[in-house]
């Protein structure tokens, strides 16, 4: 059971990151803490940084550094046009997928 859930979580996590950026930029620490505070989403905050780096390499997000009022400069993440497309496509698929799974779990038949 547990490995399935953690695989599912790992697969979905990057889209949750993209979703958090839909309404505007966020800096890394803010992103990480927001996701980490969602129930059952992240087991170790540190593993989000490699994920963010990958999204950047894949061109789904882009970053700019800006001074912070307190502490070190912050790296702000924004969604690229490509990131928006990917997020949109996933949202549609997820909607359909989760509805099907919910239906099956609830009734044991295909609605």
């Amino acid at each position, binding site marked *: 059971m547990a490995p399935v859930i953690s695989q599912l979580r790992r697969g979905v996590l990057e889209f949750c990151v993209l979703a958090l950026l839909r309404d505007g930029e966020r800096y890394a*620490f803010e992103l990480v803490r927001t996701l980490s505070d969602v129930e059952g989403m992240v087991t*170790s*905050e*540190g593993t989000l*940084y*490699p994920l963010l780096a990958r999204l950047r390499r894949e061109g789904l997000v882009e970053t700019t550094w800006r001074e912070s009022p307190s*502490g*070190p400069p912050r*790296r702000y993440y924004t969604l690229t046009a490509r990131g928006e497309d990917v997020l949109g496509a996933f949202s549609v698929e997820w909607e359909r997928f989760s509805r099907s799974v919910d239906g099956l779990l609830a009734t044991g038949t295909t609605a």
Partner: protein
Amino acid sequence: MTTRTLHPLAEAYLDRLERAADHLPRGRRKELVADIETHLLEALRPNASEAEVRNVLDRLGDPDEIAQADQPRPTPASTATDGTEWATITLLLIGGFFAGIGWLLGVFLLWRSRVWTVRDKLIGTLLWPGGVAVSFVFLSSYLISGAEVCGPGECTDDGFDLAAIPIIAALLVPVGTAVYLARRAKHSSSS
């Protein structure tokens, strides 16, 4: 880059991360460590207590896990038997038939592999060099010379029993070596 110093525990954590990520390309390792360092500077106020530092580090998770999330380390657990081992064992066993080159290739693969220990490799190389091909050369020359010595009716039952020993050994030793290497490979990949 840092304008203030981190708690020694946090510094030690960054060192561990740096080591855990030593399989990553340099640029990616530096970036990962810098990202985590920035995180620590955000999460920890100056003069944070040890308990606060430990909490932040716990939330970050194990440095190994973070580095593996970036890119799995190509472990010597690619000791996982992947077919190369079988090719190696087969070449050592019967590769000698291909003008001897096959056996030499087998030896090359054997010594390059991370699956076997040096002791295994020495056994695989030296116990019966050439594999079954050498057994055949050995046996045919033995049988020919045996036929010359053994005139009609001269070969008694006793003589035959004695003659059987090197024949059996010539077949058992290379096959036994192959079985031994196969078992060691299996043992190594499951541990």
